[in-house]
């Protein structure tokens, strides 16, 4: 069968959208949450949320912790508290891995409620919690997202004529298509930017050949490349041990050097060695480019090694793209715009997945030769791919409050709850009829999100009755956003209920479980 260009694009969009949409939904959802990773971390450690330890003191305490527990690690990295979060993270190197622990800045000990916090969402967003393989999968899926966006533009022939069009009463397929188009087209600049820049972050990993060709295959060769691309000081360890200066002093000098209070991270290479190197970067609140304000010192003498990073144009481009993706700039306004745009993208993917079902169901009604077996599988996987991650994220927050604060391996338990609930959602979706599965899982999501602020009141001292009067908006916003999610679920459920009543009254035989009114 000969096909036109736009027909083959439609085929590509439909099938790549379906298959990769199942995982893209979770990637976009956790990506949107990652915008507020620090705020979520702070919410998840209410015991240290009220502490107001300056970064200078906090990093000294973190360094003490690392010195006592991981003195021989080749490098350390500390994310100090900032105005976005009172808690801090300490990383140490083990081979190629960087395990970390959340510390309470007030005591310098492992935080009472040890957790990965919002960082887990960041991690899941680009690695699916599966290490390097995960990064490759996310890269492949991200590429498919880009293909989905571009093929979507090609097959959407009335992109300008239908720019403002949304017809909720025009029949299920029409309404879902309108919603899918509107959500996609109106956030298209964001979606193209975020997908492309996401791929650009790992460009050197996804496309290693140019570097290998020009520099060579070995690890040293690629290190040489990175050294040229991002000029910084690297000293070899001497095996002469020496005492590191207090890290707080370096934080202070960085604050003075760039005229900013907020420090992104401080890292130490070969901490106990004579050639220890301390590197810092401020938080980039006022520019897109990341990493061009690197500052490096000798850890033992305090001598300034380098200030700023002179980029070549290509590196600069890549660092701007990275900066656009990480959205450290512009403060709360940018964060909320990114968060909303990200959720719109998430909803766009969800409507696309549902559209596949709606369309296929209509084909079945019109032509009895199309089998229903495949559609049943799609319906069930849709439930697990859309309601599943929402439930899993909520379960993660619930686990944070329900697990005993002193539990060993606590972060792993919380993450376990995330995956366990997602797996339960899949099993439930396979077991129940699709329509019931939607109803039940969204009821669960509504309950979990509406009750979470209540649970927070019972289990912590940083709940809405405290945070709202005190004007602690960053903490209150987490509770309020979860409440808003709960209300959105209730609204969806009401629409589902109305739909069912109408079907019952009209006695229509077609299984109209769709949410849209027709």
């Amino acid at each position: 069968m000969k096909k036109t260009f736009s027909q083959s694009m439609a085929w590509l969009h439909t099938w790549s959208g379906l298959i990769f949409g199942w995982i893209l939904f979770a990637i976009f959802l956790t990506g949107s949450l990652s915008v507020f990773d620090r705020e979520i971390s702070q919410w998840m450690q209410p015991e240290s949320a009220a502490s107001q330890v300056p970064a200078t003191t906090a990093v000294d305490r973190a360094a003490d912790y690392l010195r006592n527990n991981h003195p021989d690690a080749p490098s350390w990295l500390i994310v100090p508290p900032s105005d976005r979060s009172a808690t801090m993270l300490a990383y140490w190197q083990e081979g190629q891995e960087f395990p970390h622990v959340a510390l309470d800045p007030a005591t310098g000990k492992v935080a009472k409620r040890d957790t990965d916090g919002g960082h887990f969402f960041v991690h899941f967003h680009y690695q699916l919690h599966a290490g390097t393989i995960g990064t490759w999968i996310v890269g492949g899926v991200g590429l498919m997202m880009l293909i989905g966006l571009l093929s979507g533009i090609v097959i959407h022939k009335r992109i300008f004529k239908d720019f403002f069009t949304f017809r909720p009463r025009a029949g299920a397929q029409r309404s879902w298509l309108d919603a899918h188009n509107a959500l996609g087209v109106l956030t298209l600049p964001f979606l193209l930017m975020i997908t492309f820049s996401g791929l650009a972050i790992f460009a050197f990993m996804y496309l290693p050949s140019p570097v290998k060709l020009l520099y060579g295959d070995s690890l040293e060769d690629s290190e040489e490349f990175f050294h040229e691309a991002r000029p910084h000081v690297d000293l070899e360890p001497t095996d002469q041990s020496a005492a590191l200066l207090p890290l707080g002093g370096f934080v202070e000098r960085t604050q003075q050097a760039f005229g900013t209070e907020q420090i992104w991270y401080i890292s130490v290479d070969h901490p106990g060695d004579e050639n220890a190197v301390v590197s810092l970067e401020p938080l980039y609140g006022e520019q897109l480019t990341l990493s061009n304000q690197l500052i490096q010192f000798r850890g033992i003498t305090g001598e300034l090694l380098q200030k700023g990073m002179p980029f070549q144009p290509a590196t600069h481009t890549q660092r701007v793209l990275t900066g656009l993706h990480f959205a450290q700039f512009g403060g709360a306004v940018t964060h909320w715009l990114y968060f909303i745009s990200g959720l719109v993208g998430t909803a766009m993917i969800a409507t696309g997945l549902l559209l596949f079902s709606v369309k296929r169901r209509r084909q079945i009604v019109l032509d009895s030769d199309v089998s229903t077996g495949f559609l049943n599988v799609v319906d069930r996987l849709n439930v697990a791919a859309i309601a599943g991650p929402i439930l899993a994220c909520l379960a993660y927050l619930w686990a944070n409050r329900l697990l005993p604060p002193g539990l060993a391996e606590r972060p792993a338990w919380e993450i376990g709850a995330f995956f366990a609930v997602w797996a339960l959602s899949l099993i439930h979706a396979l077991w129940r009829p699709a329509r019931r599965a939607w109803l039940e899982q969204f009821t669960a999501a509504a309950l979990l999100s509406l009750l979470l602020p209540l649970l927070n009141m019972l289990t912590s001292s940083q709940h809405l009755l405290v945070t709202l009067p005190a004007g602690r908006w960053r903490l209150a916003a987490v509770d309020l956003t979860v409440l808003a999610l709960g209300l959105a679920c209730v609204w969806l459920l009401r629409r589902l209920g109305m739909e069912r009543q109408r079907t019952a009254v009209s006695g229509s035989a077609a299984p109209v479980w769709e949410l849209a009114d027709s």
Partner: protein
Amino acid sequence: MIVLMLVLAYGGMTALCLAMNRHYRQVRFGRPSLQLKWILRLTGTALLLVALLLGSIGWGPTIGPVVWFGVLSVSALILIFMLPYRPRLVLRSNLAVSPLALLASLIILL
């Protein structure tokens, strides 16, 4: 600043939207005259540009446009989901706040 930008972009998007026959019919009877269509298009474009200008003043020439794109998306989404449910409110809300926002931004720009 962000509120001003949102209001201006919302106004701009509404004007561009009403310049189309189909959407004009959603809020008023009949069709817009050719003249009115062009006035709406020009006003809409001008409002969006003022919003961009404000963004660039508030966040600088690099971050400003990024914020502006976000504001465009959010304001157009509000408009698009309000039109079928509360078409009259679209017009009223615009008439209520747009002139104020325009005045405030003129003060900022001058």
